[in-house]
């Protein structure tokens, strides 16, 4: 299987004719976002595994604490699912490179994100356990805080991107950034769903 030389003759490439930015899997930023999401997804998975490991150490669950109140967690999950719509519309507007559309939907996404953070504040008050009560409390607070960190950082990212779209200076590839930022929001939502089930329903079912 010696190396076969492809068709000889000049195979020069004229890069001038190629676009200067791209959407989806051909853009570098897509790979960067998915790479970071894979890393943090592993961290979320390990935090959930830690929660169930701690479960194996005690008989009654949750140990000497009531399960977290359902109200705020469920409200937040609904807000998060609802936020998928403006997120998708922002992504589409970005891919259409529609400046007005991007501005509107990025702001709507921002409102949802801020609402989610506010409700998250109430969630913390309704956990019925403190982080230093026992290992269960530590695992619950660790899981929720890990997600909150991602939520806050992504909200800040989106806010900076939205501000950029109002003040400029703009260029073509910023629209690609909008679609990748939407991708990361999908990850934040995707990560929340298993955590929601683990935090709020696992204590009731186990």
């Amino acid at each position, binding site marked *: 299987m010696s190396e076969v030389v492809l068709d000889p003759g000049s195979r020069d490439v004229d890069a001038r004719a190629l676009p200067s930015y791209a959407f989806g899997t051909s853009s570098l930023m897509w790979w960067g976002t998915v790479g970071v999401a*894979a890393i943090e997804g592993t961290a979320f998975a390990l935090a959930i595994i830690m929660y169930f490991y701690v479960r194996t150490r005690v008989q009654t669950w949750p140990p000497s604490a009531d399960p977290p109140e359902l109200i705020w967690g469920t409200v937040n999950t609904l807000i998060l699912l609802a936020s998928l719509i403006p997120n998708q519309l922002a992504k589409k507007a970005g891919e259409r490179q529609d400046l007005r559309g991007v501005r509107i939907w990025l702001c709507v996404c921002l409102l949802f994100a801020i609402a989610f953070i506010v409700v998250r504040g109430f969630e913390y008050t309704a956990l019925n356990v403190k982080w230093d009560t026992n290992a269960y409390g530590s695992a619950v607070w660790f899981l929720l805080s890990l997600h909150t960190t991602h939520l806050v950082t992504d909200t800040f990212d989106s806010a900076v991107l939205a501000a950029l779209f109002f003040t400029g200076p703009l260029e073509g590839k910023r629209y690609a950034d909008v679609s990748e930022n939407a991708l990361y929001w999908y990850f934040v939502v995707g990560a929340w769903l298993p955590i929601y089930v683990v935090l709020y329903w696992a204590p009731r079912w186990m």
Partner: protein
Amino acid sequence: MSTPALPGSSDVFADPARDARDAPLPEESVGLWGFLTTIDHKRIGLRFIVTAFGFFVLAGILALLMRLQLAVPENGLIGPDRYNQIFTTHGTTMMFIFAVPIMAALGVYLVPLMLGTRNIAFPRMIAYAYWLYLFGGLMLYTAFVLDVGPDAGWFSYVPLAGPQYGVGKRSDFWAQLITFTEVSGLLVTVSIITTVFKLRAPGMTIERIPLFVWAQLVTMFMTMFAMPAVMVASTALILDRLVGTHFFNYAEGGDALLWQHLFWFFGHPEVYMIFVPGLGVVSAIVPVFARRPQFGYPAMVVSLIATAFLSFGLWVHHMFATALPDVGKVLFTAASMAIAIPTAVQLFCWTVTLWTGKTVLRTPLWFVLGFFFILVLGGLTGIMVSSVPLDLQLHDTYFVVAHLHYVLIGGAVFPLFAGFHYWFPKVTGRMMDEQLGRWTFWLMFIGFNVAFFPMHILGLEGMPRRVYTYSAAMGWGALNMTATVGAIVLGFGILLFAVNVARSLRYGALAGANPWQADTLEWWYSSPPAFGNTHRIPVITSRTPLWTPGGIAGEVRGLSRSPPETLVTSGLEAHPDHRVAMPTPTIWPLISAIATTVLFIGSIFTPWAVVWGSIPVAIALTIWFWPTRAEARRHRALEKSP
């Protein structure tokens, strides 16, 4: 457009067309400001390597101190408290600050060159990763000098490193160092994976990627899924110590073994993250000195991938002595033995390549021979400790100390020194001295074996790990003295290497572009390659572009020089997709790294540092992201919508 001179022929050295092609692009500033703001993957990669080698020397000195203390029984040279800090800092430095980062740094420097692109993906993030890594290492050694160094072992088992028995701030410095090196390591992984998939020269399809790049790619995927485990573990440890969580407090529902599971789930892939790049370096060197393409390329690639998957399935072999159920442990014996097969496959392929080639013996190949000898011995002792019952006798004894040094120094340091001697001409433009290289090899080879082989016997004779002294009645004195003498000889070998480097920088023979007449693309550029590596990205038609006639069948024209652009190609077939502008040099990665360092170190002393510390970090990152008007205008000038 004349096709470039046929590689492999003698006049490839004096190629005026190539020299013009490699004239440096503008945008590269010099002096201190240039040093602090550079985004050239070669400058950052080189300082990564030099810094990691600096920490290697520091940790080596600590190792010599340990050997001096253990040279004679009941020695009073170093007390237990200081000795615990020394062996912990030695282990932590070698694993977290030397081995993993220097292998990633090799990738940062060489992968873009081997792929034929102009720069690494996300170069500013790589600059940020380097500064964070540097500040983490400095923090550890400042703590060590101030007698606040970590003292619970490089794996920092709980409860000894826990809130009750880990007194003071020592274990906090360890846990925070993990955060530094992990953030830096993970950012490098994202960058190298994106580079390998998206920035390859046109025509470099999946099966034309050099084996060194495959090894780096596999290592980065392992890093990506292994490091989060130790980040979760070290974060849980620092929370236990500072804000009173109970992850590892058995009285409140936690468990000491939770730490071991989390740590070793990362720990074992980590030693493969150190070892697999070593395999990549050997795969780069063997075909060049055998003067023939590497035999069994597909088998080698599959073996690398198999090693990566298997490495996640055998972490429990570090915990055979704990009270885990035995039936589970036997599974881990089988997995631990199975991982020897992919490495064996690569060993056979190298041997066959060397057997059927017109082999020429230079210093890099000497180190590869040392690698064969030491790694095979280390791999066989590894098979011994992977057997559950036998590990009950060998675990946590000097037998394991011997095993880990055989596979790490044999599997990573010897290939690394082979790589240093091999790529030194490309990095500096001058050859290293062959005679000094031979002496370096034999001093290191003999010193290593004299130092570490006796430890197998000490382990069998009952000497446990991490003891600051031992009783004279045990009869271990002679073997320990031998080990100390060996360690000193190994130290002289590494010192001689440093002398060789210093000497060759000024007096080394001029190397030209391809002194070894190698096959991979990094030997196509001038030595050292200019900023941006080349104007015209090559079009590849074979796995050994510089050997196969017509291997470089064309060039990519039309990429702007200011702002410098590079070509993005598709993942599998490397068809040209679009061009992207490289970022301009900027100071903000350094400032963001300083802000992050303040946040990390502050959070050791007060949890509130996380809150107020994150504000300067957010500001620095925002300014780093925010495009300047001039930059946007220049990009819009070259813009073309998809």
